[in-house]
């Protein structure tokens, strides 16, 4: 018994040591020699804990990136403070291509919520996915369409749940209210699932959430989605109209892409951008993203940068009012 305990102890220490060294590996700068980049392992920072939607997308992309770049991609989760911990960490790294990160929609919002996160501190290398927002009501709700809901919300305030204060889904409800003049009271929950559960239980009038959580509850007929905030219908719920079809051309989504600290050498940037384009369009990646309830939407580095800036301005107006 004593021997096996010792063995277990050694194994624990070894795992601990591996974890520590694995984390420390990303700090080394290779100088970014253009002809040979990449030579060392690349660290991919994720702003959320392992197991969530962001982590899933990042890991799926990393799997595809590895054979293209010919080096290992070490995915490192640095959750905390609405993702700002990871974003500040990425901004502080050397722009040599050894540290990149998964960038979520929050990068365009956090500055307006008084976090120290500025999109100007990053090079955006490409969008890889999009999770469009969905507005749902309880199955016994009297409202069958988005139009009916908005009309009713003009005469009485509606409680609309979302995944948390300062989340993209709260911004979506704010956007719908300011666009239509509906009276929507934001009720932030601790994550998407409890908000969906509150709609299913009829405690709130509606909720805005991502397609993944809504489609599962929809499949079980626990909730009734009224509209998708995207320019086309969601493949997991094809009979739910878009907001534009209902007369309100609004788009809100939890998008994600890849970024790096500002100032990458031009050739490193080109290498990364083309690798990301190839990986994001590979069948392995797109299938994983579709299964998770999101859409594999790709934008090039240039398009993505312009998109982030336009989102940043849009949320500035929207959250400034809120």
């Amino acid at each position: 018994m004593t021997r096996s305990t010792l063995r277990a102890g050694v194994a624990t220490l070894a795992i601990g040591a591996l974890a520590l060294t694995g984390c420390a590996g990303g700090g080394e700068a290779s100088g970014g020699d253009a002809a040979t980049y990449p030579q060392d392992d690349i660290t991919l920072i994720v702003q959320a804990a392992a197991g969530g939607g962001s982590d899933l997308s990042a890991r799926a992309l990393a799997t595809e990136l590895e054979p293209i770049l010919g080096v290992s991609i070490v995915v490192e989760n640095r959750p905390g403070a609405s993702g700002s911990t990871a974003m500040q960490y990425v901004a502080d790294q050397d722009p040599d291509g050894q540290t990149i990160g998964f960038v979520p929609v929050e990068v365009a919002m956090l500055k307006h919520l008084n976090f120290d996160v500025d999109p100007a501190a990053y090079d955006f290398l490409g969008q890889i996915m999009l999770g469009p927002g969905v507005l749902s009501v309880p199955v016994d709700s009297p409202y069958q369409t988005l139009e009916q809901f908005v009309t009713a919300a003009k005469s009485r305030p509606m409680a609309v749940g979302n995944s948390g204060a300062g989340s993209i889904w709260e911004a979506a409800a704010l956007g719908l209210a300011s666009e239509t003049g509906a009276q929507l009271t934001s009720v932030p929950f601790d994550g998407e699932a409890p908000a969906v559960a509150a709609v299913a239980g009829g405690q709130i009038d509606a909720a805005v959430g991502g397609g993944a959580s809504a489609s599962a509850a929809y499949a079980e007929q626990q909730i009734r989605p009224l509209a998708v905030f995207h320019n086309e219908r969601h493949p997991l719920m094809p009979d739910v109209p878009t907001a534009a079809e209902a007369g309100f051309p609004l788009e809100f989504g939890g998008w994600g892409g890849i970024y790096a600290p500002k100032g990458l050498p031009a050739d490193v940037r080109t290498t990364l951008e083309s690798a990301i384009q190839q990986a994001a369009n590979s069948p392995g990646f797109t299938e994983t993203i579709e299964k998770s309830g999101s859409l594999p939407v790709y934008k090039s580095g240039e398009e993505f940068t312009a998109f982030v800036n336009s989102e940043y301005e849009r949320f500035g107006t929207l959250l400034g009012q809120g």
Partner: protein
Amino acid sequence: MNALADGIAALLDPTVAVCFVVGLLVGTLVGFFPGITGSMAVALASGFTLTLEPVQGLAVLLTIYVGANYGDRIPSILVNTPGTPAAIATTFDGYPMARQGKAGLALVSSSIVTTGGILLSMVLFVVAARPVAQLALEFGPAEMFALVVFGLAIMVSVSGKSVVKGLIAGVAGLVLATVGRDPITGDARFVFGVNDLNSGLPFIAVIIGLFGIAELFDQLLTHRPHTVKPISSLGRWWPTRGEYRQMARPFGVSSVIGMIVGAVPAAGGDIAGLIGWDRAKRMSKEPDRFGKGSLEGLTAADTASSATLGGSLTTTMALGIPGDAVMAVMIGSMIIWGVQPGPSLFTREPELMVSIAGIMVMAALVSLAISLVRTRGIVRLLDLPNHYLWGGILVCCIVGTYTTTNNIYTVWVMLVSGVVGVVMKRCGFPPGPVVLGLLLGPLAESNLRRALLIDGPAGLVTQPIAAGLLVLALVALAGPLVARARAARTERRGAMTAPVHRRWVAVDHPSWRQAHASTVLAVGGDLLAAWFAGEREGSPDTRIWCARRPQGRRAGRHRWSSPPAMRRTGTRCSPPGRTAPCGCSSSAAR
């Protein structure tokens, strides 16, 4: 029926079997080491299970949860050290039984009733979880708020000796819980420009700090050599038929208590074990034997603390509110796996519920088998020197908390919590209420404010479940206070009729394992106390010890001379049948 087949089929996957074995090994080892709690093990393991499928991950974590529950009885019984708080009540009768040469019987009986308690409570999970789940969908923010208040009311009962100190600790936890972003408006509160504080204090780091690290620091700061030899002879293993009959009544009483306490949020095996032991004593025909090696007492303690598992699991899965500290970690992991425990889980994923019940039952049965087979060999592990034990624990804690965020800040929070925990421990403040406040405070606040956003203040009163729970919470809060007040009154009344003065003659001495035959007599106006003490009756180190208390103004009041100062005055006891001279009275008079 489909869910039943799917749920069981999910368990037949070989990877699940591997996870199951890993969990079982970790759980058995972990519970066995004094001080390493099941929640610490589950928290550490959860860092390594994040990438698994829910069923695989649950197979690891639930099995650790169950396995630790068996392992932690062993040091309780053999060396009077509870492996986890849930085994505190086990020491009351388990250790005396071991000293009476019935260690084998104690270990085996403990394993049997632990298994019985878990299996019985899983029946509740399977049978009654459905109505609980039906009811659970009715739980909106108003009801959740009322339920959390109900949980907070338990602060008084977990306060230990001093209600005031318990409540101060609880309020401190509630205050700490307000650090971070406001749950409704998103404004920063008490962040002081530290970005990491935006997400609040990391809960697991604080728990590990307040319990594990604080205990470790406390041990490092205590320079008392505390060498306890494990008991080498186990004696008879299996209970006789008469003993089984004896165990039946405390088993029945305690399993009900365990399930109820387990279902109550934030009350776990430690409280259940104590209450179960206490109730069984009141209902026993031989209450005097409790605490002196009663098989009934051991049965009551272990049944109650193990029956909390099913109750706690029911609450956790059906309500999304942690039934105990292990379940708090479990909820975090499940959310990461994309399984949100809560009102709709039973309807959303019935097959997962079947898998959970299957894992629990299998873990309980296999743990029983393992504990029967391994009991003999496992005893020797305790010979590991303390410094290796504590060093290993410190490394595990640091690695574990670091991996939750990959951020050294979390480790600092843990270490600082450890220092705070030692100070609290030394000042008599219980850490339980702090953790309760930190865990339930944000739930109470955010649900109250959601409820107010939706319906305004009226919703809390007009909704029957919410209103009912709030009334129950008031009763739960008032109950222990009234009981304490009544106990204090009875004590005062007793003091009027028969005054009893308790004074310590001598503080504990390292070599005194047993003491008896104390006597006090007046010698020339002074008081002289004498007693036998040593390793045990008849052991070579047993001596007569003396202490003298001068009367009058010659010395400070209540001052007894310290026995070690008169070390030479003791006389070695001789074998039975021969008398030995005792020179202590003469030397004490000098």
